[in-house]
Protein backbone atom coordinates (compact mmCIF):
# COMPACT_ATOMS: atom_id res chain seq x y z
CA UNK A 1 0.00 0.00 0.00
CA UNK A 2 1.42 3.35 -0.94
CA UNK A 3 1.96 6.02 1.67
CA UNK A 4 -0.32 8.51 -0.07
CA UNK A 5 -3.37 6.28 -0.23
CA UNK A 6 -2.73 5.14 3.33
CA UNK A 7 -3.02 8.71 4.56
CA UNK A 8 -6.08 9.36 2.44
CA UNK A 9 -7.96 6.32 3.73
CA UNK A 10 -7.14 6.49 7.42
CA UNK A 11 -6.93 10.02 8.80
CA UNK A 12 -4.42 10.62 11.58
CA UNK A 13 -5.91 9.92 15.00
CA UNK A 14 -4.56 13.25 16.33
CA UNK A 15 -6.45 15.30 13.79
CA UNK A 16 -9.65 13.40 14.53
CA UNK A 17 -9.43 14.05 18.25
CA UNK A 18 -8.36 17.61 17.69
CA UNK A 19 -11.37 18.59 15.63
CA UNK A 20 -13.86 16.86 17.92
CA UNK A 21 -15.76 19.47 19.84
CA UNK A 22 -15.35 19.53 23.59
CA UNK A 23 -19.12 19.29 24.18
CA UNK A 24 -19.46 16.00 22.34
CA UNK A 25 -16.40 14.63 24.13
CA UNK A 26 -18.01 15.42 27.50
CA UNK A 27 -21.27 13.78 26.41
CA UNK A 28 -19.36 10.67 25.31
CA UNK A 29 -17.40 10.67 28.56
CA UNK A 30 -20.62 10.71 30.58
CA UNK A 31 -21.73 7.51 28.85
CA UNK A 32 -18.83 5.71 30.54
CA UNK A 33 -19.42 4.24 33.99
CA UNK A 34 -16.04 5.34 35.26
CA UNK A 35 -16.86 8.97 34.50
CA UNK A 36 -20.23 8.73 36.24
CA UNK A 37 -18.79 7.06 39.34
CA UNK A 38 -15.95 9.58 39.40
CA UNK A 39 -18.35 12.47 39.04
CA UNK A 40 -20.54 11.19 41.88
CA UNK A 41 -17.48 10.87 44.14
CA UNK A 42 -16.31 14.37 43.26
CA UNK A 43 -19.77 15.91 43.78
CA UNK A 44 -20.23 14.19 47.16
CA UNK A 45 -16.78 15.18 48.43
CA UNK A 46 -17.03 18.73 47.13
CA UNK A 47 -20.45 19.00 48.81
CA UNK A 48 -18.99 17.75 52.12
CA UNK A 49 -16.09 20.18 51.85
CA UNK A 50 -18.27 23.17 50.87
CA UNK A 51 -21.36 22.69 53.04
CA UNK A 52 -19.83 20.63 55.86
CA UNK A 53 -19.08 23.69 57.99
CA UNK A 54 -22.79 24.62 57.98
CA UNK A 55 -23.92 21.25 59.35
CA UNK A 56 -21.02 20.58 61.72
CA UNK A 57 -22.39 19.89 65.24
CA UNK A 58 -19.52 21.71 67.00
CA UNK A 59 -17.01 24.42 66.33
CA UNK A 60 -13.82 22.85 64.90
CA UNK A 61 -11.86 24.13 67.90
CA UNK A 62 -14.38 23.38 70.66
CA UNK A 63 -13.37 20.76 73.22
CA UNK A 64 -15.81 17.87 73.48
CA UNK A 65 -13.96 15.39 75.67
CA UNK A 66 -10.57 14.02 76.73
CA UNK A 67 -7.97 13.70 73.95
CA UNK A 68 -8.48 10.63 71.75
CA UNK A 69 -11.70 9.65 73.54
CA UNK A 70 -13.90 7.12 71.73
CA UNK A 71 -17.12 7.98 69.88
CA UNK A 72 -19.99 9.07 72.14
CA UNK A 73 -23.40 10.69 71.78
CA UNK A 74 -21.82 14.15 71.92
CA UNK A 75 -18.92 13.38 69.61
CA UNK A 76 -20.08 10.78 67.10
CA UNK A 77 -16.60 10.06 65.78
CA UNK A 78 -14.77 10.67 69.05
CA UNK A 79 -12.24 13.33 69.94
CA UNK A 80 -8.89 14.20 68.41
CA UNK A 81 -5.42 14.81 69.88
CA UNK A 82 -6.60 17.91 71.79
CA UNK A 83 -10.10 16.65 72.60
CA UNK A 84 -11.79 18.42 69.68
CA UNK A 85 -14.69 16.86 67.76
CA UNK A 86 -13.40 14.66 64.91
CA UNK A 87 -16.68 14.85 62.96
CA UNK A 88 -16.80 18.66 63.04
CA UNK A 89 -13.14 18.99 62.07
CA UNK A 90 -13.71 16.51 59.25
CA UNK A 91 -16.66 18.58 57.97
CA UNK A 92 -14.56 21.77 58.14
CA UNK A 93 -11.34 20.24 56.87
CA UNK A 94 -11.86 19.98 53.12
CA UNK A 95 -12.76 23.55 52.24
CA UNK A 96 -9.28 25.07 52.38
CA UNK A 97 -7.61 22.17 50.55
CA UNK A 98 -10.21 22.20 47.79
CA UNK A 99 -10.14 25.97 47.31
CA UNK A 100 -6.34 26.07 47.19
CA UNK A 101 -6.13 23.06 44.86
CA UNK A 102 -8.71 24.61 42.51
CA UNK A 103 -6.85 27.94 42.42
CA UNK A 104 -3.46 26.29 41.90
CA UNK A 105 -4.85 24.10 39.10
CA UNK A 106 -6.54 27.10 37.45
CA UNK A 107 -3.27 29.05 37.61
CA UNK A 108 -1.27 26.18 36.12
CA UNK A 109 -3.85 25.47 33.43
CA UNK A 110 -4.31 29.07 32.27
CA UNK A 111 -0.63 30.00 32.15
CA UNK A 112 0.51 26.52 31.10
CA UNK A 113 -1.81 26.45 28.09
CA UNK A 114 -0.79 30.02 27.23
CA UNK A 115 2.90 29.08 27.24
CA UNK A 116 2.19 25.88 25.31
CA UNK A 117 0.14 27.69 22.65
CA UNK A 118 2.72 30.45 22.28
CA UNK A 119 5.52 27.89 21.95
CA UNK A 120 3.63 25.80 19.40
CA UNK A 121 2.55 28.83 17.38
CA UNK A 122 5.85 30.70 17.34
CA UNK A 123 7.88 27.82 15.84
CA UNK A 124 11.11 29.78 16.41
CA UNK A 125 13.57 30.76 19.16
CA UNK A 126 10.66 31.63 21.46
CA UNK A 127 9.56 27.99 21.36
CA UNK A 128 13.05 26.87 22.47
CA UNK A 129 13.35 29.50 25.20
CA UNK A 130 9.91 28.77 26.64
CA UNK A 131 10.33 25.02 26.66
CA UNK A 132 13.83 25.16 28.19
CA UNK A 133 12.40 27.41 30.91
CA UNK A 134 9.78 24.72 31.49
CA UNK A 135 12.58 22.14 31.80
CA UNK A 136 14.09 24.16 34.64
CA UNK A 137 10.85 24.02 36.64
CA UNK A 138 10.50 20.33 35.74
CA UNK A 139 13.92 19.67 37.30
CA UNK A 140 12.21 19.72 40.70
CA UNK A 141 9.66 17.21 41.90
CA UNK A 142 6.51 19.26 42.56
CA UNK A 143 6.71 18.92 46.34
CA UNK A 144 10.38 19.97 46.39
CA UNK A 145 9.70 23.39 44.87
CA UNK A 146 6.81 23.96 47.25
CA UNK A 147 9.05 23.04 50.22
CA UNK A 148 11.85 25.37 49.09
CA UNK A 149 9.29 28.18 48.78
CA UNK A 150 7.86 27.42 52.24
CA UNK A 151 11.36 27.29 53.74
CA UNK A 152 11.92 30.80 52.46
CA UNK A 153 8.64 32.56 53.21
CA UNK A 154 6.66 30.22 55.47
CA UNK A 155 3.44 28.27 54.82
CA UNK A 156 1.29 31.11 53.46
CA UNK A 157 -1.82 30.16 51.46
CA UNK A 158 -0.92 32.34 48.46
CA UNK A 159 2.59 30.90 48.40
CA UNK A 160 1.40 27.28 48.41
CA UNK A 161 -1.11 28.06 45.63
CA UNK A 162 1.60 29.82 43.64
CA UNK A 163 4.18 27.05 44.15
CA UNK A 164 1.78 24.24 43.22
CA UNK A 165 0.42 26.29 40.29
CA UNK A 166 3.92 27.07 39.08
CA UNK A 167 4.94 23.39 39.11
CA UNK A 168 1.70 22.48 37.32
CA UNK A 169 2.38 25.03 34.59
CA UNK A 170 5.21 23.29 32.65
CA UNK A 171 3.37 19.96 32.69
CA UNK A 172 0.31 21.60 31.12
CA UNK A 173 2.50 23.59 28.72
CA UNK A 174 4.11 20.40 27.37
CA UNK A 175 0.76 18.73 26.71
CA UNK A 176 -0.69 21.90 25.15
CA UNK A 177 2.31 22.39 22.90
CA UNK A 178 2.18 18.77 21.77
CA UNK A 179 -1.54 18.97 21.01
CA UNK A 180 -1.32 22.37 19.29
CA UNK A 181 1.68 21.62 17.07
CA UNK A 182 -0.23 19.60 14.43
CA UNK A 183 -3.02 22.22 14.44
CA UNK A 184 -0.62 25.09 13.77
CA UNK A 185 0.30 23.36 10.50
CA UNK A 186 -3.32 23.17 9.33
CA UNK A 187 -4.69 25.35 6.52
CA UNK A 188 -7.21 27.34 8.52
CA UNK A 189 -4.41 28.78 10.66
CA UNK A 190 -2.56 29.85 7.53
CA UNK A 191 -5.80 31.31 6.18
CA UNK A 192 -6.34 33.32 9.36
CA UNK A 193 -2.76 34.60 9.16
CA UNK A 194 -3.26 35.60 5.53
CA UNK A 195 -6.39 37.53 6.50
CA UNK A 196 -4.33 39.47 9.02
CA UNK A 197 -6.10 38.11 12.12
CA UNK A 198 -4.10 39.27 15.17
CA UNK A 199 -1.97 36.71 16.94
CA UNK A 200 -3.94 36.61 20.19
CA UNK A 201 -7.13 35.88 18.23
CA UNK A 202 -5.46 33.04 16.36
CA UNK A 203 -4.31 31.55 19.67
CA UNK A 204 -7.69 32.05 21.33
CA UNK A 205 -10.14 31.45 18.50
CA UNK A 206 -8.35 29.05 16.14
CA UNK A 207 -5.99 26.98 18.28
CA UNK A 208 -7.57 26.88 21.74
CA UNK A 209 -10.96 25.40 20.72
CA UNK A 210 -9.12 22.58 18.97
CA UNK A 211 -7.16 21.48 22.02
CA UNK A 212 -10.00 21.55 24.56
CA UNK A 213 -10.12 17.74 24.95
CA UNK A 214 -6.52 17.28 26.07
CA UNK A 215 -6.89 20.36 28.26
CA UNK A 216 -9.95 18.89 29.99
CA UNK A 217 -8.00 15.68 30.64
CA UNK A 218 -5.16 17.80 32.03
CA UNK A 219 -7.60 19.73 34.21
CA UNK A 220 -8.79 16.63 36.04
CA UNK A 221 -5.32 15.07 36.17
CA UNK A 222 -3.71 18.24 37.55
CA UNK A 223 -6.54 18.77 40.02
CA UNK A 224 -5.94 15.22 41.28
CA UNK A 225 -2.25 15.92 41.85
CA UNK A 226 -2.83 19.40 43.30
CA UNK A 227 -5.24 18.02 45.91
CA UNK A 228 -2.72 15.32 46.82
CA UNK A 229 0.13 17.85 47.01
CA UNK A 230 -1.66 20.44 49.10
CA UNK A 231 -3.08 17.81 51.46
CA UNK A 232 0.41 16.25 51.56
CA UNK A 233 2.03 19.54 52.52
CA UNK A 234 -0.52 19.91 55.32
CA UNK A 235 0.28 16.34 56.39
CA UNK A 236 3.98 17.30 56.60
CA UNK A 237 2.98 20.15 58.93
CA UNK A 238 2.89 22.94 56.37
CA UNK A 239 -0.73 24.05 56.48
CA UNK A 240 -1.73 27.69 56.66
CA UNK A 241 -2.49 27.36 60.37
CA UNK A 242 -1.18 24.82 62.86
CA UNK A 243 -4.52 23.89 64.46
CA UNK A 244 -6.87 24.86 61.61
CA UNK A 245 -9.22 22.06 60.56
CA UNK A 246 -7.59 20.45 57.52
CA UNK A 247 -7.76 16.84 56.33
CA UNK A 248 -4.00 16.63 55.82
CA UNK A 249 -3.18 18.15 59.20
CA UNK A 250 -5.76 15.89 60.91
CA UNK A 251 -4.07 12.73 59.65
CA UNK A 252 -0.74 13.85 61.05
CA UNK A 253 -2.12 15.07 64.38
CA UNK A 254 -4.13 11.96 65.13
CA UNK A 255 -1.97 9.15 63.80
CA UNK A 256 -0.04 8.63 67.05
CA UNK A 257 -3.22 7.21 68.62
CA UNK A 258 -4.44 5.49 65.47
CA UNK A 259 -4.97 2.22 67.33
CA UNK A 260 -7.10 3.62 70.13
CA UNK A 261 -9.05 6.23 68.14
CA UNK A 262 -8.73 5.53 64.39
CA UNK A 263 -11.54 7.84 63.21
CA UNK A 264 -9.40 10.97 63.31
CA UNK A 265 -7.17 9.34 60.68
CA UNK A 266 -9.59 7.16 58.74
CA UNK A 267 -12.14 9.88 57.88
CA UNK A 268 -9.71 12.39 56.33
CA UNK A 269 -7.74 9.60 54.59
CA UNK A 270 -10.97 8.29 53.10
CA UNK A 271 -12.03 11.77 52.00
CA UNK A 272 -8.73 12.54 50.23
CA UNK A 273 -8.61 9.06 48.69
CA UNK A 274 -12.19 9.19 47.33
CA UNK A 275 -11.75 12.74 46.06
CA UNK A 276 -8.54 12.00 44.15
CA UNK A 277 -9.92 8.70 42.84
CA UNK A 278 -13.01 10.62 41.69
CA UNK A 279 -11.07 13.28 39.78
CA UNK A 280 -8.81 10.54 38.40
CA UNK A 281 -11.80 8.53 37.11
CA UNK A 282 -13.36 11.62 35.49
CA UNK A 283 -10.05 12.42 33.79
CA UNK A 284 -9.71 8.87 32.51
CA UNK A 285 -13.31 8.94 31.21
CA UNK A 286 -12.73 12.18 29.30
CA UNK A 287 -9.43 10.90 27.94
CA UNK A 288 -11.10 7.70 26.70
CA UNK A 289 -13.96 9.64 25.14
CA UNK A 290 -11.52 12.04 23.48
CA UNK A 291 -9.40 9.25 22.07
CA UNK A 292 -12.52 7.40 21.00
CA UNK A 293 -10.70 4.16 21.72
CA UNK A 294 -9.71 2.14 24.74
CA UNK A 295 -6.51 3.79 25.83
CA UNK A 296 -4.66 4.84 28.95
CA UNK A 297 -3.56 8.33 29.75
CA UNK A 298 -1.99 9.92 26.68
CA UNK A 299 0.82 11.55 28.63
CA UNK A 300 2.09 12.46 32.08
Amino acid sequence: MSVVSDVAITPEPESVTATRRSGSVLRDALKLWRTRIGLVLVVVLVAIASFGPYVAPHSPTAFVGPPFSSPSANARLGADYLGQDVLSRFLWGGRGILAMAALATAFGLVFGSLVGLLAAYSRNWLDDVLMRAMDVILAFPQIMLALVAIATVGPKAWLIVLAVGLTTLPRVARVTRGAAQPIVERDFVGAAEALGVPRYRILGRELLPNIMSPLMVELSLRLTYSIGLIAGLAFLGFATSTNGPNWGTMINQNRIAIQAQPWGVIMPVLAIALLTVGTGLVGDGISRAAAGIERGRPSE
Partner: protein
Amino acid sequence: MHSGGIWGFILRRTLLGLLVLAVVSVLVFAATQALPGDPARAILGRSATPDSLAALRAKLHLDQPVLQQYWNWVTGLLHGDLGNSLANQEPVSTYLKPLIINSGFLVLLSGIISIPLAIAIGVWAAVRRDKAFDVGSSLITLLLAALPEFVVGVVLVVLFATVVVQWLPAVTQVPPGGRPWDDMTGMVLPVATLVIAVTPYVARIMRASMIEVLESDYVEMARLKGLRENTVILRHALPNALGPTFQVIAINLAYLAGGVIVVEYVFNFPGIGGALVGGVSNRDLPVVQALAMLVATVYVVLNLIADIATILVTPRMRTTL
Protein backbone atom coordinates in the same frame (compact mmCIF):
# COMPACT_ATOMS: atom_id res chain seq x y z
CA MET B 1 18.02 16.70 11.75
CA HIS B 2 21.11 17.80 13.66
CA SER B 3 24.38 16.27 12.67
CA GLY B 4 27.10 14.73 14.79
CA GLY B 5 25.63 11.25 15.18
CA ILE B 6 25.13 9.63 18.53
CA TRP B 7 28.10 11.33 20.24
CA GLY B 8 26.90 14.74 19.10
CA PHE B 9 23.49 13.94 20.54
CA ILE B 10 24.96 12.84 23.89
CA LEU B 11 27.13 15.97 24.02
CA ARG B 12 24.19 18.29 23.24
CA ARG B 13 21.99 16.64 25.83
CA THR B 14 24.71 16.77 28.50
CA LEU B 15 25.33 20.48 27.88
CA LEU B 16 21.60 21.15 28.05
CA GLY B 17 21.39 19.26 31.35
CA LEU B 18 24.27 21.30 32.78
CA LEU B 19 22.56 24.50 31.64
CA VAL B 20 19.35 23.48 33.40
CA LEU B 21 21.31 22.70 36.59
CA ALA B 22 23.07 26.08 36.42
CA VAL B 23 19.73 27.89 36.21
CA VAL B 24 18.34 25.70 39.01
CA SER B 25 21.31 26.62 41.22
CA VAL B 26 20.62 30.33 40.64
CA LEU B 27 16.97 29.81 41.59
CA VAL B 28 17.82 27.82 44.71
CA PHE B 29 20.35 30.44 45.73
CA ALA B 30 17.88 33.24 45.04
CA ALA B 31 15.54 31.56 47.53
CA THR B 32 18.06 32.43 50.27
CA GLN B 33 18.13 36.04 49.21
CA ALA B 34 14.35 36.27 49.42
CA LEU B 35 14.50 35.32 53.11
CA PRO B 36 12.99 38.07 55.23
CA GLY B 37 15.48 39.11 57.87
CA ASP B 38 18.94 37.65 57.68
CA PRO B 39 20.26 34.23 58.65
CA ALA B 40 22.73 35.65 61.16
CA ARG B 41 19.90 37.19 63.16
CA ALA B 42 17.91 33.97 62.82
CA ILE B 43 20.79 31.92 64.28
CA LEU B 44 21.65 34.27 67.15
CA GLY B 45 18.01 35.01 67.95
CA ARG B 46 17.44 37.38 70.84
CA SER B 47 20.98 37.13 72.15
CA ALA B 48 22.21 39.10 69.12
CA THR B 49 24.41 42.12 69.73
CA PRO B 50 25.60 44.37 66.88
CA ASP B 51 29.13 42.97 67.34
CA SER B 52 28.15 39.31 67.34
CA LEU B 53 25.86 39.89 64.35
CA ALA B 54 28.64 41.50 62.37
CA ALA B 55 31.04 38.72 63.34
CA LEU B 56 28.62 36.00 62.30
CA ARG B 57 27.77 37.80 59.06
CA ALA B 58 31.45 37.89 58.23
CA LYS B 59 31.81 34.21 59.16
CA LEU B 60 28.86 33.27 56.92
CA HIS B 61 30.19 35.62 54.19
CA LEU B 62 26.92 37.53 54.31
CA ASP B 63 28.83 40.82 54.13
CA GLN B 64 30.06 40.07 50.61
CA PRO B 65 28.32 41.07 47.36
CA VAL B 66 25.53 38.73 46.23
CA LEU B 67 27.42 37.50 43.17
CA GLN B 68 30.45 36.67 45.33
CA GLN B 69 28.21 34.80 47.77
CA TYR B 70 26.66 32.83 44.90
CA TRP B 71 30.09 31.99 43.51
CA ASN B 72 31.31 30.84 46.93
CA TRP B 73 28.24 28.68 47.32
CA VAL B 74 28.48 27.05 43.88
CA THR B 75 32.20 26.34 44.12
CA GLY B 76 31.54 24.92 47.60
CA LEU B 77 28.85 22.66 46.15
CA LEU B 78 31.21 21.38 43.48
CA HIS B 79 33.81 20.57 46.15
CA GLY B 80 31.23 18.82 48.32
CA ASP B 81 31.31 21.68 50.84
CA LEU B 82 27.65 22.48 51.50
CA GLY B 83 28.18 24.88 54.38
CA ASN B 84 27.04 24.38 57.96
CA SER B 85 23.55 23.57 59.10
CA LEU B 86 22.02 26.62 60.78
CA ALA B 87 20.18 24.38 63.23
CA ASN B 88 23.03 22.30 64.66
CA GLN B 89 26.16 23.99 63.24
CA GLU B 90 27.30 20.63 61.85
CA PRO B 91 28.65 20.58 58.27
CA VAL B 92 25.68 19.82 56.02
CA SER B 93 27.62 17.12 54.16
CA THR B 94 28.40 15.16 57.37
CA TYR B 95 24.81 15.50 58.52
CA LEU B 96 23.24 14.46 55.21
CA LYS B 97 25.61 11.71 54.07
CA PRO B 98 24.15 8.78 56.06
CA LEU B 99 20.62 10.04 55.36
CA ILE B 100 21.28 10.17 51.62
CA ILE B 101 22.59 6.61 51.73
CA ASN B 102 19.46 5.47 53.62
CA SER B 103 17.12 7.21 51.17
CA GLY B 104 19.13 5.92 48.23
CA PHE B 105 18.71 2.40 49.54
CA LEU B 106 14.95 2.93 49.88
CA VAL B 107 14.63 4.37 46.35
CA LEU B 108 16.84 1.67 44.84
CA LEU B 109 14.97 -1.17 46.51
CA SER B 110 11.63 0.33 45.44
CA GLY B 111 12.91 0.79 41.89
CA ILE B 112 14.30 -2.76 41.67
CA ILE B 113 10.89 -4.12 42.65
CA SER B 114 8.57 -1.70 40.86
CA ILE B 115 10.20 -1.35 37.44
CA PRO B 116 10.24 -5.06 36.42
CA LEU B 117 6.81 -5.43 38.01
CA ALA B 118 5.42 -2.50 36.02
CA ILE B 119 6.98 -3.72 32.77
CA ALA B 120 5.56 -7.21 33.32
CA ILE B 121 2.08 -5.88 34.11
CA GLY B 122 2.13 -3.51 31.13
CA VAL B 123 3.37 -6.13 28.65
CA TRP B 124 0.98 -8.80 29.87
CA ALA B 125 -1.96 -6.37 29.78
CA ALA B 126 -1.08 -5.39 26.20
CA VAL B 127 -0.69 -9.01 25.08
CA ARG B 128 -4.00 -9.94 26.75
CA ARG B 129 -5.64 -6.75 25.56
CA ASP B 130 -9.30 -6.35 26.63
CA LYS B 131 -9.18 -9.69 28.46
CA ALA B 132 -9.82 -9.98 32.19
CA PHE B 133 -6.23 -9.24 33.26
CA ASP B 134 -6.05 -6.12 31.13
CA VAL B 135 -9.38 -4.71 32.28
CA GLY B 136 -8.65 -5.54 35.93
CA SER B 137 -5.10 -4.21 35.96
CA SER B 138 -6.13 -1.07 34.06
CA LEU B 139 -8.77 -0.25 36.63
CA ILE B 140 -6.55 -1.00 39.63
CA THR B 141 -3.62 1.01 38.26
CA LEU B 142 -5.97 3.90 37.48
CA LEU B 143 -7.30 3.97 41.04
CA LEU B 144 -3.88 3.58 42.67
CA ALA B 145 -2.28 6.21 40.42
CA ALA B 146 -4.80 8.78 41.66
CA LEU B 147 -3.94 8.28 45.35
CA PRO B 148 -1.37 10.59 46.95
CA GLU B 149 1.55 8.55 48.32
CA PHE B 150 1.04 9.61 51.94
CA VAL B 151 -2.54 8.31 51.73
CA VAL B 152 -1.24 4.97 50.45
CA GLY B 153 1.29 4.90 53.29
CA VAL B 154 -1.24 5.71 56.00
CA VAL B 155 -3.71 3.14 54.60
CA LEU B 156 -0.96 0.48 54.73
CA VAL B 157 -0.22 1.46 58.34
CA VAL B 158 -3.92 1.14 59.20
CA LEU B 159 -4.19 -2.24 57.43
CA PHE B 160 -0.93 -3.97 58.34
CA ALA B 161 0.60 -2.22 61.33
CA THR B 162 -2.13 -0.92 63.60
CA VAL B 163 -5.91 -1.11 63.34
CA VAL B 164 -6.56 -4.26 61.30
CA VAL B 165 -3.55 -6.51 61.91
CA GLN B 166 -0.18 -5.77 63.52
CA TRP B 167 2.18 -7.79 61.39
CA LEU B 168 4.64 -5.05 60.57
CA PRO B 169 6.15 -2.07 62.40
CA ALA B 170 4.32 1.21 61.72
CA VAL B 171 7.60 3.14 61.79
CA THR B 172 11.11 2.29 60.65
CA GLN B 173 13.00 2.14 63.92
CA VAL B 174 16.74 2.50 63.56
CA PRO B 175 18.93 2.53 66.71
CA PRO B 176 21.66 5.22 66.80
CA GLY B 177 24.52 4.20 64.54
CA GLY B 178 22.36 1.51 62.93
CA ARG B 179 21.14 1.26 59.36
CA PRO B 180 17.56 0.76 58.14
CA TRP B 181 18.51 -2.49 56.40
CA ASP B 182 19.67 -4.05 59.69
CA ASP B 183 16.01 -4.88 60.30
CA MET B 184 14.27 -5.42 56.98
CA THR B 185 10.79 -5.68 58.51
CA GLY B 186 10.93 -1.92 58.97
CA MET B 187 11.59 -1.52 55.24
CA VAL B 188 8.54 -3.47 54.06
CA LEU B 189 5.87 -0.79 54.38
CA PRO B 190 7.93 2.18 53.08
CA VAL B 191 9.05 0.14 50.07
CA ALA B 192 5.52 -1.16 49.48
CA THR B 193 4.17 2.40 49.58
CA LEU B 194 6.67 3.64 47.01
CA VAL B 195 6.10 0.58 44.79
CA ILE B 196 2.34 1.17 44.89
CA ALA B 197 2.88 4.86 44.13
CA VAL B 198 5.12 4.27 41.10
CA THR B 199 4.13 0.95 39.50
CA PRO B 200 0.68 1.95 38.16
CA TYR B 201 2.00 4.84 36.16
CA VAL B 202 4.88 2.94 34.52
CA ALA B 203 2.60 -0.04 33.85
CA ARG B 204 0.09 2.17 32.02
CA ILE B 205 2.73 3.74 29.79
CA MET B 206 4.29 0.31 29.14
CA ARG B 207 0.90 -1.07 28.10
CA ALA B 208 0.18 1.79 25.69
CA SER B 209 3.66 1.57 24.19
CA MET B 210 3.46 -2.23 23.82
CA ILE B 211 0.02 -2.06 22.16
CA GLU B 212 1.33 0.40 19.61
CA VAL B 213 4.28 -1.86 18.81
CA LEU B 214 2.17 -5.02 18.65
CA GLU B 215 0.05 -3.37 15.95
CA SER B 216 3.07 -2.37 13.87
CA ASP B 217 4.05 -3.80 10.50
CA TYR B 218 7.26 -5.46 11.66
CA VAL B 219 5.48 -7.42 14.38
CA GLU B 220 2.92 -8.50 11.76
CA MET B 221 5.87 -9.49 9.56
CA ALA B 222 7.50 -11.50 12.33
CA ARG B 223 4.22 -13.31 12.94
CA LEU B 224 3.77 -14.01 9.23
CA LYS B 225 7.29 -15.46 9.12
CA GLY B 226 5.89 -18.08 11.46
CA LEU B 227 7.90 -17.13 14.54
CA ARG B 228 6.61 -18.35 17.86
CA GLU B 229 4.46 -15.81 19.72
CA ASN B 230 6.93 -15.67 22.65
CA THR B 231 9.77 -14.84 20.27
CA VAL B 232 7.68 -12.17 18.60
CA ILE B 233 6.81 -10.56 21.92
CA LEU B 234 10.17 -10.83 23.65
CA ARG B 235 12.59 -10.35 20.72
CA HIS B 236 10.69 -8.11 18.30
CA ALA B 237 8.05 -6.16 20.21
CA LEU B 238 9.47 -5.63 23.71
CA PRO B 239 12.77 -3.93 22.74
CA ASN B 240 10.89 -1.34 20.69
CA ALA B 241 8.21 -0.84 23.32
CA LEU B 242 10.84 -0.23 26.02
CA GLY B 243 11.97 3.04 24.39
CA PRO B 244 9.26 5.38 25.70
CA THR B 245 9.20 3.42 28.93
CA PHE B 246 12.81 4.35 29.68
CA GLN B 247 11.68 7.96 29.83
CA VAL B 248 8.94 7.02 32.23
CA ILE B 249 11.25 4.89 34.36
CA ALA B 250 13.63 7.83 34.65
CA ILE B 251 10.84 10.22 35.50
CA ASN B 252 9.57 7.79 38.08
CA LEU B 253 12.94 7.15 39.70
CA ALA B 254 13.19 10.92 39.96
CA TYR B 255 9.63 10.96 41.23
CA LEU B 256 10.70 8.39 43.83
CA ALA B 257 13.41 10.83 44.89
CA GLY B 258 10.62 13.36 45.52
CA GLY B 259 8.09 10.81 46.77
CA VAL B 260 10.45 9.55 49.47
CA ILE B 261 10.09 12.94 51.18
CA VAL B 262 6.49 12.28 52.20
CA VAL B 263 6.78 8.50 52.51
CA GLU B 264 9.80 8.76 54.83
CA TYR B 265 7.84 11.18 56.96
CA VAL B 266 4.93 8.71 57.22
CA PHE B 267 7.23 5.96 58.49
CA ASN B 268 9.68 8.16 60.38
CA PHE B 269 12.37 6.73 58.09
CA PRO B 270 15.81 8.24 58.75
CA GLY B 271 16.45 9.79 55.33
CA ILE B 272 16.49 12.99 53.34
CA GLY B 273 12.70 13.37 53.72
CA GLY B 274 12.88 13.90 57.44
CA ALA B 275 15.92 16.15 57.02
CA LEU B 276 14.09 18.24 54.43
CA VAL B 277 10.88 18.58 56.46
CA GLY B 278 12.97 19.48 59.52
CA GLY B 279 15.02 21.92 57.46
CA VAL B 280 11.90 23.61 56.11
CA SER B 281 10.34 23.84 59.59
CA ASN B 282 13.52 25.35 61.10
CA ARG B 283 14.24 27.40 57.98
CA ASP B 284 17.63 25.69 57.90
CA LEU B 285 18.36 26.92 54.38
CA PRO B 286 21.78 25.31 53.79
CA VAL B 287 20.14 21.90 54.35
CA VAL B 288 17.16 22.75 52.13
CA GLN B 289 19.43 24.15 49.40
CA ALA B 290 21.68 21.07 49.45
CA LEU B 291 18.72 18.70 49.19
CA ALA B 292 17.04 20.74 46.46
CA MET B 293 20.24 20.68 44.40
CA LEU B 294 20.68 16.96 45.07
CA VAL B 295 17.17 16.06 43.94
CA ALA B 296 17.38 18.34 40.89
CA THR B 297 20.72 16.79 39.91
CA VAL B 298 19.34 13.27 40.29
CA TYR B 299 16.38 14.30 38.17
CA VAL B 300 18.44 15.87 35.37
CA VAL B 301 20.94 12.99 35.28
CA LEU B 302 18.18 10.36 35.17
CA ASN B 303 16.47 12.17 32.29
CA LEU B 304 19.77 12.38 30.47
CA ILE B 305 20.35 8.65 30.90
CA ALA B 306 16.77 7.99 29.73
CA ASP B 307 17.19 10.08 26.58
CA ILE B 308 20.43 8.32 25.69
CA ALA B 309 19.08 4.87 26.58
CA THR B 310 15.98 5.51 24.44
CA ILE B 311 18.17 6.21 21.43
CA LEU B 312 20.35 3.17 22.11
CA VAL B 313 17.55 0.64 22.54
CA THR B 314 15.25 1.88 19.78
CA PRO B 315 16.67 0.52 16.54
CA ARG B 316 14.65 2.81 14.27
CA MET B 317 15.76 5.97 16.12
CA ARG B 318 19.48 5.24 15.81
CA THR B 319 19.34 5.72 12.07
CA THR B 320 17.58 9.10 12.20
CA LEU B 321 20.43 10.75 14.08
